[in-house]
């Protein structure tokens, strides 16, 4: 297992500790090149596909490739037990570091223990692990909710009726973002009436529930969505609901709409962390393997853009897919994928 040491970390600009109390790890330095594995769960959506493309692209960058002996990716589907088995297999097969996008953040206690015993560096991202024993590269999900709500509070002068389009029930991401939104709204002192629907982070579903809500409620003063935002805007357009402020995620399609209709009232705050966070996770893993000091919990910055700052080719891409997630730059970590790079990656390989 790693030694718990005092901060700061080797690269304090990139590896920002989550809180003042965050521990710092120092693993015994190993000689490279390393065998690193990515244990992904579900794969069949754009976010995950993009994430895997990014991981491959990052691992192929010359300075990273030089430090890697092997980079292996396995996707095990929805089933958390299969993912646990995959991580165990990686441990047994002698990989030096394992990067995980967990299906269920709570389910990895035994795995974390096993990795520790085997001296394997375990780094979780996106859905981080509920543990202080492994490294988490963490998005501030609650902070994202706070960000959207704060922006709505600032943009809508007198409060009003908000449609909150939630994600998948039963997940911690959904809960954290929801909590962030509500705490902020409640504290604002304005009067808010929030209607909640579940859009499952999916455009058609979000569109359908939004359309239903508009048909029944007639009018909203603001929107906030955790995903499926493009669909939600589409539903506004289809229902001829006048454009109102919208705090949402970082889908390319959403930003396209925001750029196009911003002047007509669709003022947006678009924030989130794109799939490129996998690169930060790999970077962290490599740093740990090399014996550098890293925080147990790394706080990822949010990639945000607000009305009227949507610029084609910079923070959205009109010629690319709507499903593409745009928040891919972490300048403090020297990670700055542009869209074409990610989407074109395997085309060049093939």
């Amino acid at each position, binding site marked *: 297992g790693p030694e718990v040491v005092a901060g700061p970390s080797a690269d304090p600009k990139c590896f920002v500790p989550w809180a003042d109390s965050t521990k710092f790890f120092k693993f015994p330095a190993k000689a490279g090149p390393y065998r690193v594995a990515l244990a992904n769960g579900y*794969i*069949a*959506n*754009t976010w995950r*596909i993009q994430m*895997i*493309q990014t991981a491959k692209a990052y691992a192929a960058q010359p300075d990273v490739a030089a430090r890697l002996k092997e980079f292996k990716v396995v996707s095990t589907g929805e089933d958390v037990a299969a993912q646990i088995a995959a991580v165990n297999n990686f441990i047994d097969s002698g990989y030096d570091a394992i990067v995980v996008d967990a299906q269920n953040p709570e389910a990895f206690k035994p795995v974390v223990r096993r990795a520790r015993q085997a001296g394997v560096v375990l780094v979780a991202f996106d859905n981080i692990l509920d543990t202080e024993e492994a490294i988490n590269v963490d998005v501030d999900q609650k902070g994202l909710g706070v960000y959207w709500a704060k922006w709505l509070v600032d943009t809508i002068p007198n409060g009003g009726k908000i449609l909150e389009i939630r994600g998948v*029930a*039963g997940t911690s991401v959904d809960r954290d973002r929801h909590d962030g939104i509500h705490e902020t709204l409640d504290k604002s002192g304005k009067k808010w009436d929030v*209607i*909640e*629907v*579940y859009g*499952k982070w*999916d*455009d*058609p*579903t979000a*569109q*359908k*529930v939004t*359309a*239903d*809500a508009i*048909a*029944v*409620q*007639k009018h909203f003063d603001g929107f906030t969505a955790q995903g499926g935002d*493009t*669909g939600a805007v*589409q539903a506004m357009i*289809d*229902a001829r609901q006048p454009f109102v402020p919208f705090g949402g995620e970082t889908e390319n*399609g959403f930003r396209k709409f925001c750029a196009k209709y911003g002047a007509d009232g669709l003022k947006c705050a678009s924030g989130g962390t794109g799939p490129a966070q996998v690169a930060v996770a790999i970077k962290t893993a490599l740093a740990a393997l090399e014996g550098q000091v890293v925080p147990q919990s790394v706080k990822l910055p949010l990639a945000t853009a607000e009305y009227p700052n949507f610029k084609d080719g910079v923070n959205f891409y009109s010629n*690319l*897919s*709507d*499903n593409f997630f745009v928040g891919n730059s972490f300048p403090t970590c020297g990670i700055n994928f542009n869209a074409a790079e990610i*989407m*074109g990656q*395997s*085309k060049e390989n*093939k």
Partner: protein
Amino acid sequence: MTTQARSRRGGALSSRLDRPVVVAFACIVALLLLGSLYSRSFLSPDYLLQQLKVASFLGVIATGALIVILLGQIDLSVPWLVAVGGMMATAATAWGPIGAWLAIPFGVACGVALGLVNGFGVAYLRIPSMIVTLAVNAVAQGLMVVHTGGFSPQDSSSPAMRALATGSLAFGLPNAVIVWIGIGACAVFVLNRTTFGRSVYGIGNRERAAYLSGVDTQRIVLLAFALAGGLSAFGGVLLAGYASKAAQGMGDAYLLPAIASVVLGGASIMGGRGSYLGTVAGVVLITLLQSILSVVQMPDAGRQVIYGAVIIGMLLLYGREGAAR
């Protein structure tokens, strides 16, 4: 004996209304009235048209499910055939001006192709449909993942797809509903007035007897699955038009509702019995139920419980098998 007691004719020689269909439509009205206690808007034309529009996607998909269920089979490949339809159509849109024309037929054709694989497995390899279609679903998912990752595909819908799914021609009637009516009319015709339809009912009732009657059962089954695949994909095309883009998970929410609406409409899951009108009722019921539960702010847990309980309650009203004696 159990089958005879409450049996319905297949291939309608008469067009008397089924009891399940009548009750299902009554349930729809009851549901709306119940909803209107929460908000008058549930009875507004806007809301109802919106529901019909959304129902038409499920309606198109459930049409395929009905045909397969009438055969006594089941199609579990719906989720990813829907996705294939939407994603392939939008991908074709990128092929310049021809692409815009080809988009819809191409998407549907891809669904038909995978449907043919289903049908081939069921009819010629005699693998239980539940499992071939499951495998084909997995293959379709695999293909779409490769497709998304490897070809940075276009996934915005063509204007034609948009118009088909969201536009409206006359009297504010959404085009999607018109498309559904068209497909429904074809389905009713095919099931009731053609040798194909009659054969489907026959095979669903007793495949062995149909085979010995000189019906080319294998070809019929193959065709039925191809048709179902095409309809799933077309549902995906419409859905992509509605959302103005295609995405991988877009079909996930359609498998169980499609089966449930067919059965809520009075069809027997064992095959050979069921009508299109019933399926229409089932589709509207499911759509309304989901929508109302979503709008009345029911937490997700409660929504699931009520959704399941209402389906069972309604089936107990009219969907029961005959008693053993």
